[in-house]
């Protein structure tokens, strides 16, 4: 599904987060303020993927937490579907939670080890007080099928799954309430390369099927290239460059973006081209000898 235009689904305006701590001198020291996120603004439209990339300390995860309303901003505002949710509580916050779900980096630490997959997947509905249509077991199995897990394993525990499978459980849980925005905070960073590629493919397929939007937080530009429609590059708490994915990669305008792109390790392009040419020849049926 292509990104639709029109009203933004999520709109952040000058989001700011300042932390204060005691400076040198311990409890007697002066309070020192540190601005982790400095007046960050962005829009996410329905059905599109905005990736926020940056290195450690860039403020990308703090931005994600504020967008997910897991952390109060010090300043700025957040609108969801035209409604100001900056200070939303009670029923308004519950509505927001039904529409916005989060997938975390470490699948094992974000899944309760003592709960079965069914209980984990149904938890968001339980919190929302929603009765699953068709019953808990049926919805669990449907969700497991959608993320490529064996539905017969609904009574197993997280430890019985591999890292990639556990992350699929985390994704299925995010889908349970039918969200309009899924925030992925380094959701594939902890996974092995081959598993990472599969999970990225899954995330893309789910978006095509259901049309929700992603806010995708990552430190890895190569991963972002594979999933995002638009990219915002963060450094030192600010967005230094934002634009369509293709444009930012092909024609980076900010010096920091250029440094970041240049630092990505690359396989020798000549070797890679040779390998792909070989693979194409091998998969092209016209090159194969006729049978019989």
């Amino acid at each position: 599904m292509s990104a639709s235009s029109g009203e933004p689904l999520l709109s952040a305006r000058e989001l700011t987060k300042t932390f204060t701590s005691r400076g040198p001198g311990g409890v007697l020291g002066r309070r020192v303020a540190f601005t982790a996120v400095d007046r960050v603004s962005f829009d996410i439209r329905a059905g599109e993927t905005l990736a926020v990339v940056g290195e450690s300390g860039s403020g990308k995860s703090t931005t994600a937490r504020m967008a997910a309303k897991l952390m109060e901003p010090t300043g700025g505002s957040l609108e969801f579907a035209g409604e100001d949710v900056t200070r939303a509580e009670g029923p308004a916050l519950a509505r927001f939670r039904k529409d916005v779900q989060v997938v975390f980096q470490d699948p094992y630490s974000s899944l309760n080890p003592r709960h079965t997959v069914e209980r984990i997947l149904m938890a968001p509905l339980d919190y929302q007080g929603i009765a699953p249509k068709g019953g808990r077991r049926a919805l669990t199995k449907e969700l497991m099928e959608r993320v490529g897990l064996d539905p017969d394993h609904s009574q197993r525990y997280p430890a019985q799954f591999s890292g990639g499978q556990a992350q699929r459980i985390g994704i299925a849980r995010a889908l349970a309430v039918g969200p309009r925005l899924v925030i992925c905070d380094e959701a594939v960073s902890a996974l092995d390369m081959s598993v990472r590629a599969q999970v990225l493919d899954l995330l893309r397929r789910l978006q095509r099927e259901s049309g929700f939007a992603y806010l995708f937080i990552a430190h890895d530009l190569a991963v972002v290239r594979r999933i995002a429609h638009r990219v915002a590059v963060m450094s030192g708490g600010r967005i230094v460059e934002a634009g369509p994915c293709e444009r930012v990669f092909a024609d980076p305008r900010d010096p920091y973006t250029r440094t970041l792109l240049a630092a990505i390790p690359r396989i020798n392009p000549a070797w890679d081209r040779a390998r792909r040419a070989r693979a194409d020849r091998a998969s092209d049926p016209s090159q194969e000898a006729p049978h019989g």
Partner: protein
Amino acid sequence: MSARAGLLVVEDLTVTLPTTRGPVDVVKGVSFTVDRDDTLGIVGESGSGKSMTSLAIMGLLPRGATATGSVRLDGEELLGRPDRELRRIRGDGISMVFQDPLSSLNPYYTVGLQIEEAYRAHRGGSRKAARAVAVEALTQVGIADAERRAGHYPHQFSGGQRQRVMIATALVCSPSLLIADEPTTALDVTVQAQILRLLAGLQERTGTGMLFITHDLAVVSSLARRILVMREGDPVEYGEAERIFSDPHHPYTRALLESVPRIDDDAEVWL
């Protein structure tokens, strides 16, 4: 013994770990050679046995684990050596840099003292002489104002600088072989690029043989002359880097290369 016998020759290395369900082979008959001034990349995903291979070479396997086969450094067999002799070889002949510099450095000692101790453990000499060596080592790995910085504690360094300190510690006795186990995995991509350049530059100057262990094919592509791909303890494919990357023979190597996201112009576009 001929000069081309190889600095490190590993033959049919098998590592067995005891588990509650009986012994399990986590490295199954791995063979490779690292020459002087040469880098071998060992590539694998989690559980491939790549780190167990390096621990077996260092004689640092967990209790109860056994290693069979042969590991020769400069023609000398290392497997089955008593711990006392291995301690002499570690640091002096073989040194190692790990993924997480913070857990490898002692937070209570200045980095200068830690490098001095690594040096004096093998070479002896006075504190003062060792300090001069430590400061020189820090300068070599690109720590500015090394004399003053030697008096600082690990927490006063950034992640990339800590990894530079670890590399300085590893190289202070001029080992003939450096084992780097995911040395840049915990680092930001711009810092990773700096550390990779540093390692390549140091190797050019010192001729140290390097065993570079990583899950990241792109990282190893610029560094290694030869590649060993491992999976679940098995050696899957071994050969010159150019051949492995341009003409992978094994389906697993092909799948790994397919999974590396491309970032350049001809990457497939998805909208």
